[in-house]
């Protein structure tokens, strides 16, 4: 059954200012949505809202047009979130790091294959503190490979990756979409998210509201 992940008139308020207002998006099974916009336009905030880590002050998220409640375990189960903070423990080995996160999602059998896919197979038993920053990003990508979640939320997945790793990422996204998965990605770098990837330009949803203190200062 095709799935549909959508957001309706989302408004985000962070750090005492409105980041974006009345934002709508929708993405279907096999689809990809690329968030673009300048720094501070709210791409990461929108990602966190999509993941359920941040509550919008207004608007709602829906899965197959059914509203997703706050702190929904059902929603957590179907998504995979990768952000710039990579949650890698330096004293654990590469394999232990990945096995932990895969195990919490209930699928450890894919761990070895996932490490091979991202080119870390040789380093599986090395403590993660010896990884370079690009290799750490590859380990984050391995988390995607080892999961079976239909919805991928990738926040700046390409930072620090070399050309071949970006190629791996593009292949993974294409394969995921072919299997009916959904990808939402925020990025500055050109990544080929595949055919018919939609782009959501954050600057189309500027915050019109200001906080009252600012209004007073303007007058």
């Amino acid at each position, binding site marked *: 059954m095709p799935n549909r992940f959508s957001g309706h008139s989302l408004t985000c308020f962070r750090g005492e200012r409105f980041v974006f207002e009345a934002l709508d998006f929708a993405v279907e099974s096999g689809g990809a949505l690329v968030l673009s916009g300048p720094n501070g336009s709210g791409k990461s905030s929108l990602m966190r809202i999509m993941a359920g880590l941040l509550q919008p002050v207004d608007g709602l998220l829906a899965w197959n047009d059914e509203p997703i409640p706050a702190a929904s375990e059902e929603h*957590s189960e179907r998504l995979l979130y990768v952000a710039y*903070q990579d949650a*890698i423990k330096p004293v654990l080995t590469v394999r232990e790091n990945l096995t932990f996160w895969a195990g919490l999602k209930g699928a450890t059998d894919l761990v070895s294959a996932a490490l091979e896919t991202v080119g870390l197979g040789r380093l599986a038993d090395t403590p993660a503190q010896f990884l370079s920053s690009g290799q750490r990003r590859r380990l984050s990508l391995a988390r995607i490979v080892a999961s079976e979640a239909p919805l991928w939320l990738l926040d700046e997945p390409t930072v620090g990756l070399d050309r071949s790793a970006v190629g791996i990422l593009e292949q993974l996204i294409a394969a995921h979409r072919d299997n009916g998965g959904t990808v939402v990605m925020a990025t500055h770098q050109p990544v080929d998210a595949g055919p018919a990837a939609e782009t959501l330009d954050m600057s189309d949803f500027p915050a019109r509201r200001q906080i009252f203190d600012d209004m007073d200062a303007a007058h």
Partner: protein
Amino acid sequence: MRALKHILIRDLRLALRQGTDVAMVVTFFVITVTLFPLGVGPEPNILARIAAGVVWVTALLATMLSLDRLFHADYEDGSIDLLVLTPVPLELIVLAKILAHWALTGLPLIVTAPVLAALLNMPGEGYAVMVFTMLLATPTLSLIGAVGAALALGARRGGVLISLLVLPLYIPVLIFSVAAVDAAITGLSPRPHMLILGAMLAAALPLAPWAAGAALRHSLR
């Protein structure tokens, strides 16, 4: 349950590989207790009288010293985000982390406490009761402490804030633990005090993970 075991093993493994955490708590406990004979004077009767209180107060402080690391490392590197996003109830995750914290601070303190009590010339009748009160009360310390540690996440000078939040809540545990040991030494039954300690543990066991979980969710931004 599988998730609980998973997190427990990971936290224990992390702490044992880093090694310094457990050693720090125990060393603090030992050094601070040995300061008392130096400060109060080597009079055996006085030391025997204050032994239970000194050991317990120091155990509270040692526990508090370790609370900082309970959630902070996971908060810094983004693990908390991912833990919240696992299809496991957050309360269960918190409970697993509290269990790991207890195994890494409570247990070493229980092992060290009788030795330190002997150093302070505590009468022989008190030892069994002291170990038993510690078994009952140190889990409560970890549970209550987790709430403070979760609330202080993201705050500057979080360690100090944790102390201010948690120490007042430790007072009942301290009072009844020391009273139980004193009762045993003076030949009275420590049972009523133990029952109250047990009640505190029974109340904290469901309430603290729930409260700490709510505080963790609040800290996400």
